[in-house]
C-alpha cells in the first residue's frame, strides 16, 4: 500500500480542549500532521472546522478517520482527497528585504504570481500570496535568493467542489 497525502475536514463542537484532543490523537498514535488550520465556522451552532493534511496508506488513513470520529466532540470527518472534487488554498505573508536589482526582480515575480504587496518600505516588502500549497512554496523558494526574511503560512483551507456542503447534516 502506498502513502498518499490526504486532506481531512473535521467538524467539531467548539468546546474547550477540542483541538488538543484531535492533535493529541495524532501524536499519541504516531500519525503525521503536514498542515493544520482551525477556525470557528458558526457561532450560533458553536462549531469549528479543523482541516488537517496528513499522509499514510489507505489502511492508516481509514484508521485515522475512525479514531477521530471516536472523539466525543467530533461531528464528522470527511476525506477531501477522495476523488478530485476539492479546492485547497493556502495564504502566506512573505517578507523580502533588498535593494536595487533584487528588489525589482522580487516585485516582478510577485506580479507574476499574483501576490499583493501589503506593506512596502524603501528596503523591504511584504507580499500576500494565496494559492495551492505548491505554488506558495515555489514563490517562497524563489524569494530566497532575493532577500527572503521570513514567511508566515496559514496552512490549508479546503472545501469540496459543487453545491453540496462538505459535512452534510
Amino acid at each position, binding site marked *: 500500500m502506498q502513502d498518499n497525502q490526504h486532506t481531512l475536514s473535521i467538524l467539531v463542537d467548539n468546546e474547550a480542549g477540542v483541538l488538543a484532543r484531535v492533535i493529541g490523537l495524532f501524536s499519541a498514535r504516531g500519525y503525521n500532521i503536514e498542515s493544520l488550520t482551525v477556525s470557528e465556522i458558526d457561532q450560533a451552532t458553536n462549531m469549528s472546522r479543523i482541516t488537517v493534511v496528513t499522509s499514510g496508506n489507505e489502511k492508516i488513513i481509514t484508521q485515522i478517520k475512525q479514531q477521530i470520529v471516536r472523539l466525543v*466532540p467530533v461531528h464528522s470527518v470527511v476525506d477531501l482527497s477522495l476523488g478530485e472534487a476539492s479546492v485547497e488554498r493556502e495564504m502566506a505573508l512573505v517578507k523580502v528585504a533588498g535593494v536595487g536589482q533584487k528588489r525589482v526582480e522580487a516585485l516582478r515575480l510577485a506580479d507574476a504570481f499574483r501576490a499583493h504587496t501589503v506593506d512596502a518600505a524603501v528596503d523591504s516588502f511584504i507580499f500576500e500570496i494565496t494559492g495551492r500549497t505548491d505554488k506558495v512554496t515555489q514563490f517562497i523558494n524563489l524569494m530566497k535568493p532575493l532577500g527572503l526574511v521570513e514567511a508566515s503560512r496559514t496552512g490549508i483551507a479546503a472545501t469540496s467542489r459543487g453545491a453540496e456542503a462538505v459535512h452534510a447534516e
Partner: protein
Amino acid sequence: MAIKATGAEIILNVLKDQGVDTLFGYPGGAVLPIYDAIYQQNHINHYLVRHEQGATHAAEGYARSTGKVGCVLVTSGPGATNAITGIADALLDSIPMIVITGQVGTPLIGTDAFQEADIVGITRSCSKHNYLVRNVEDLERVMHEAFYIASSGRPGPVVIDVPKDVQFAEYEYTGELVNEHKTYKPIIDGAPDAIAEAIKLIKNAKKPIFYTGGGVINSGPEASEALREFVELTGAPVTSTLMGLGAYPASGDKWLNMLGMHGSYEANMAMHDCDVMICVGARFDDRITGRIDAFAPHCKKIHIDIDPSSINKIIQVDVPIVGDVKSVLTDMIKLWKAGNCSKTQPSLKPWFKEIDAWRARNSFAYNKTDDVIAPQYAIERLYELTKDQDTYITTEVGQHQMWAAQHYKFDEPNRWMTSGGLGTMGYGLPAALGVQVAHPDALVIDIAGEGSIQMCMQEMATAMQFGLPIKIFILNNERLGMVRQWQQLLHGERYSATYSESIPDFVIMAQAFGCLGLRVSDPAKLDDTIKEMMAYNGPVLVDVEVEKHANCLPMIPSGAVHNEMILEDVLADVEVSDAGKRLV
C-alpha cells in the same frame, strides 16, 4: 421540578438518579464540599480506600462484576494523579467508570496553585472522555452526559474535574436524565447485509471458529446467552481471549480454552487452520495474533465490534459488522434459524477430529511433585474446592494470572476480573474489594503473586474497615516470575532485578492489618489450608509457597506464529528472532 442545590449536592443528586449507591474514594482539600454533602445523606455508601489507585481498581471490579458503572471520587493534584493508572486500565479493558476529581478553584487554575494538576490534560489520552466543569450551570448536564458516555457504546472511563468553587456554587437541579448526545452516537445494530454475508460464510464453513473477547461480557449477560445459543446452532468450536472468559462456559463441549500467547495448543492451532473466523467483541491484540503477517492465513474473517476503529486496525477482515454484540448475535440467530442453516451445513466432524488430536496434547499439563506445590496445582485445587460456591476471581499480573486463566474454569460471565490490556500489577486486591462490595455474600478471591500484592497491599486495611471478607491467594515463587521467564528465554538467563531479597512475612503482615494469615508449602496440606481460608469469616491472606522456577506454558514467543508454540519446558533452547526480542 427544579430544586436549588450546591454543586456538591448536584453531584450526589446525579449519582442517586443514575442509580449509584457505591462510591470509592479518598478525601482532600479540593473535594471537601462533596465529602461534606456525603456526610449529610444516606443513599450513597462511600468506601474509603488507602490509595487512590485502589479506588479506581475497586470501581473496575465493581463494574465488571455487575455491569454497572463504577464510581470514584478523589481530590485534586496527587489524589487525581494517583488515580491515573486505574483510569488507563479501565480505558484499555473498556470498563464503564466515572472518576470525579476535585480541582483548585477556578480563579486559581493555571497558577500552579497548591495541589493543582492539569487533570483534563493528563487524562486526555487515557480516558474515553473528560470534562473540566467551570460553571455550576453545566454540572448536572455534564454529569449525566458522562454516565451516558461511560456506559454506552464501547464503555470506558470518563473523568469529571470539578473546581472547588463550583462545588460551593448554587444552581437549579432538574433531575432530567440524558440518553443522547449531539455528536456521540454509538452504533447498536449491525448492518443487515453484512450480517447476511456473515451467515453465508458460516453456514458453508468446514472449519469455523468463534474467537470471543471482553466485548461479549460488556454487552451484558444476554450477549453471553446469545453466544451460547449461536454456538449450539452452528456447532462451531469456541475460544476466548483473557478478557472474555466465562462468556462461553468452560464446561461446554465446544470449548477450546483460552487462545493467545499463553493459550491452549488446540485454540491456537484451530485459529491458525480455520476457514472461517468469527471474532466477537475482541480486537486482534498482539497477545492474540502473534506475528501478524502469518496470523490465521487460510480463513475468511468476520469481525463484530461496537467500536468502528477496532475494525481493520491490526488485521484486515472480510466482513466487518459494527454493532453491539447482543444485538448482532440476536440478528444472526434469527437469520440462521430462518434459513434452516443447520440442515445444509457441511459436517464439522472432520474439524473436531483434528481439534481432538490437538486437545490430546494436553498443553496445560505440568509437573506435579509431592514435595513442592506446583503453582498450577494450587489453582486446580482452588478451583475444585470453590467451584460449587458463588465465587468471583480477580488476579494480579504475572505468571499466576495466566495460570489462573488456564486452570480456573469459568462457566458464567462477570466472574473473572483481570487487568488484560494494561497488565496492571496491583489490580487484583482492590478489584476484589469492589467485587465484594457488589456481592457481599459471595466468595471473592484475588489470585496474586508475591510481587504484585505489594503494589496495593495497603487496601487490606480497607477490607478490614468495611468488613469485606476477601481472600488473597498468593502464589509465592519469590520471583517476579513472568519477567524472570522472559529473561530466561530472551536474555541469556541474566536475571536482572527479578529476585527481591526482602519479601515481607505475609502471615505477619496479614495479622498486622487484622486479617487472618495462613501459609502452606506442603502439597498434602494445600486442601486443608484452602478450606480454612474459605471457612474464615473475614479477610484472609494465604501465602502459598510454590515451585520457584516454573514457567508459564504453553507460550507463543513474541514474533512467532500460532503453530510455532512452545509446549514443553525447553525455554532455554528456544531461538527467538531479533525482531521478536524487540517486541514486548
